[in-house]
């Protein structure tokens, strides 16, 4: 199957392209249309471009779609340069504290040279620090020009008491954003991971004083924990693609020994459920070579029954895809809503959840609406 405008809609061509990288150089301009339009929306156009560039195949792409790939490469290059610069600023701002500071997700992939850095786009920098260092870290960042962006007292209270991160901090002059985490999941989940385990095995990043990256195994597990607890799945496909890249790299490094390593580490970190769905999603959506028996083991270890599993996979299939009107599957709206509710359910005990959602709803109803004007003129 290749992209064909005469085929009925409902095909996620961005996912198809990620799973068929080898086939991209042979596509015609018209076949690229659906891929460019959807991959742009799914934030993976730069990844396709970077893969083609790495494979020396960019010139095989017809000129009109190639222009979009070159543009996406320029965006990724600019973002990567900014990530490196932010990493240096963060390192300088926090090195006097003498605590490990781990870069997470996109910025970690880029600075540690991971496989998932390939054409990765992102918006802010995430760091993980020891919980008892939260105050000095916040002070250190403030001294270097980052300020809290959220001045709503309920939100501040909510983040600090229940979440695994503090509200985002924005840099005064550079306009960049940093998310400071002290755990990888909210403290209100039934069995929160022990973040100290992650920091204890984190690796120092060469050339930095205090910056670290998680081990490749922990990077996979963190990305899965984040994705399968999240209420915002707008970058779902891109995140599955990250996982696909990370898993393929581990497989190349360690061979089949990587699977038992992931299974046992997931138990230690209490992220058995995300590992099971994560392995399934990579195999089912992007063709990652995860053996069936590893997925079965992961599911058994997470204690997920067959019916529950089948229902959840039906839901994930509808949500971890390009959010493009031409790529919609039946039941997608329902699945999105169900998983939004599930994310909140996992995050908090029901009474606390009810209280939180009603406060948020009330605030939304009573908040003044911001005016927006179509963009004309440089930002």
């Amino acid at each position, binding site marked *: 199957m290749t992209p064909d*405008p005469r085929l009925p809609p409902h095909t996620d061509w961005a996912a198809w392209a990620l799973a068929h990288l080898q086939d991209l150089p042979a596509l015609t*301009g*018209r076949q*690229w*249309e659906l891929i*460019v*339009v*959807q991959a*742009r*929306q799914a934030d993976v156009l730069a990844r396709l471009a970077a893969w083609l560039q790495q494979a020396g195949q960019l010139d095989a792409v*017809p000129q*009109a*779609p190639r*222009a*979009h790939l*070159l*543009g*996406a490469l*320029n*965006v990724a*290059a*600019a973002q990567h*340069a900014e990530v490196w610069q932010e990493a240096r600023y963060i390192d300088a701002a926090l090195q006097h504290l003498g605590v490990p500071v781990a870069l997470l997700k996109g910025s970690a992939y880029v600075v540690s040279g991971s496989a998932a850095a390939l054409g990765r786009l992102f918006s802010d920098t995430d760091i993980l620090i020891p919980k008892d260092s939260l105050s000095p870290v916040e002070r250190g960042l403030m001294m270097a020009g980052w300020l809290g962006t959220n001045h709503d007292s309920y939100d501040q209270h909510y983040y600090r008491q229940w979440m695994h991160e503090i509200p985002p901090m924005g840099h005064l002059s550079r306009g960049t954003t940093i998310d400071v985490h002290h755990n990888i999941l909210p403290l209100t989940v039934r069995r929160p991971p022990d973040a100290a385990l992650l920091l204890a095995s984190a690796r120092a990043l060469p050339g930095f004083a205090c910056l670290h990256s998680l081990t490749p195994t922990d990077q996979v597990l963190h990305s899965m924990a984040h994705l399968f607890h999240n209420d915002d799945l707008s970058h779902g496909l891109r995140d599955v693609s990250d996982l696909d890249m990370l898993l393929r790299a581990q497989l190349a490094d360690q061979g089949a020994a990587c699977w038992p390593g992931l299974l046992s580490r997931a138990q230690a970190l209490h992220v058995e459920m995300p590992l099971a769905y994560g392995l399934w999603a990579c195999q089912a959506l992007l063709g990652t070579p995860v053996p069936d028996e590893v997925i079965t083991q992961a599911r058994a270890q997470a204690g997920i029954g067959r019916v529950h599993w089948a229902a959840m996979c039906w839901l994930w299939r509808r949500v971890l895809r390009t*959010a*493009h*009107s*031409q790529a*919609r599957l039946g039941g997608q709206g329902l699945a999105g809503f169900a998983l939004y509710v599930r994310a909140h359910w996992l995050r908090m005990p029901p009474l606390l959840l009810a209280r939180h959602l009603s406060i948020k709803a009330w605030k939304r109803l009573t908040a003044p609406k911001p*005016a*927006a*004007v*179509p*963009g*004309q*003129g*440089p*930002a």
Partner: protein
Amino acid sequence: MSAALTLGDLSPQALDAALRGPGLRLRTGPWVFAIRSRLPQLLTALPALYGRHPLADDNTFADFHVEVIRATGLRRYIRPQIYFGIGGESPFSPLPADQGVPILEWGMNWCITGHAHHLLVLHAAVLERNGRALILPAPSGSGKSTLCAALLLRGWRLLSDELALIDPATGQLLPFPRAVSLKNASIEVIQAFGGDQLQFASVVRDTVKGTVGHFAPPPDAVERGDERAGPGWIVFPKYVAGSAASLSPMTRGQAMIGLIENAFNYNLLHRTGFQTMANLVQASTCRRFQYSRLDEAVQLFDELSCLPPGAA
């Protein structure tokens, strides 16, 4: 290109079917926009504004799938609104339902400023004479659009009234011939200046920018829509009521800073952005310009166009 089907060749029924169905595949400059909409106002406005534009066939790559759609629910009946949509998402707020032309035009510009990062993109009008480009960069309110409209009515070829597109590989400016937009008092000024040859195809009152009018680009702008231009003149215009038209020198450094202030993706392109812009400024004659009367302005630009390329 000349043999290609144009939008004006379509019967109203065929245009309606394309807009409601798979999309009208409109080619303008280097891009093809697949446009979908059920708004009756676009059925008359599009042929008036884009009648000479070529259409791409079904086997040609389209760059952007865009739509102008009515808000649903109660909004259908009470002060109806329309959205600009791309892939089922709306990059900006809805507008009142009579603003179909402005929202489509702004949306198409948004596609380019948001995604065309293989090019250096500036907020500027661009015209051409003798193969060389006149770039008029300026923020809104500087009189750039009025000046641009006056020049294209006096023989300069329009490349774009809103976006300068510079190819880093060649340093050339790409045409992007589109509906020409004017605001408020400029509409009557240009109508008087252009006389009978000028028909506004759409005038909409009470937009976020006041009254907005659009007229069709001249035929040669569309027919030569893939003919690029080399660097020529960079002129920073300023409308000063009652002033005599005058050009004054500026250094290339000042021109560079002025261009950076009007660039959409200069920072994003890093070294390439700097190189491209520096080459452009180096090869151009750079001037400040103030004016109040269009006839004087056109005369001065005629004289400027006689200077040798790149004169300091």
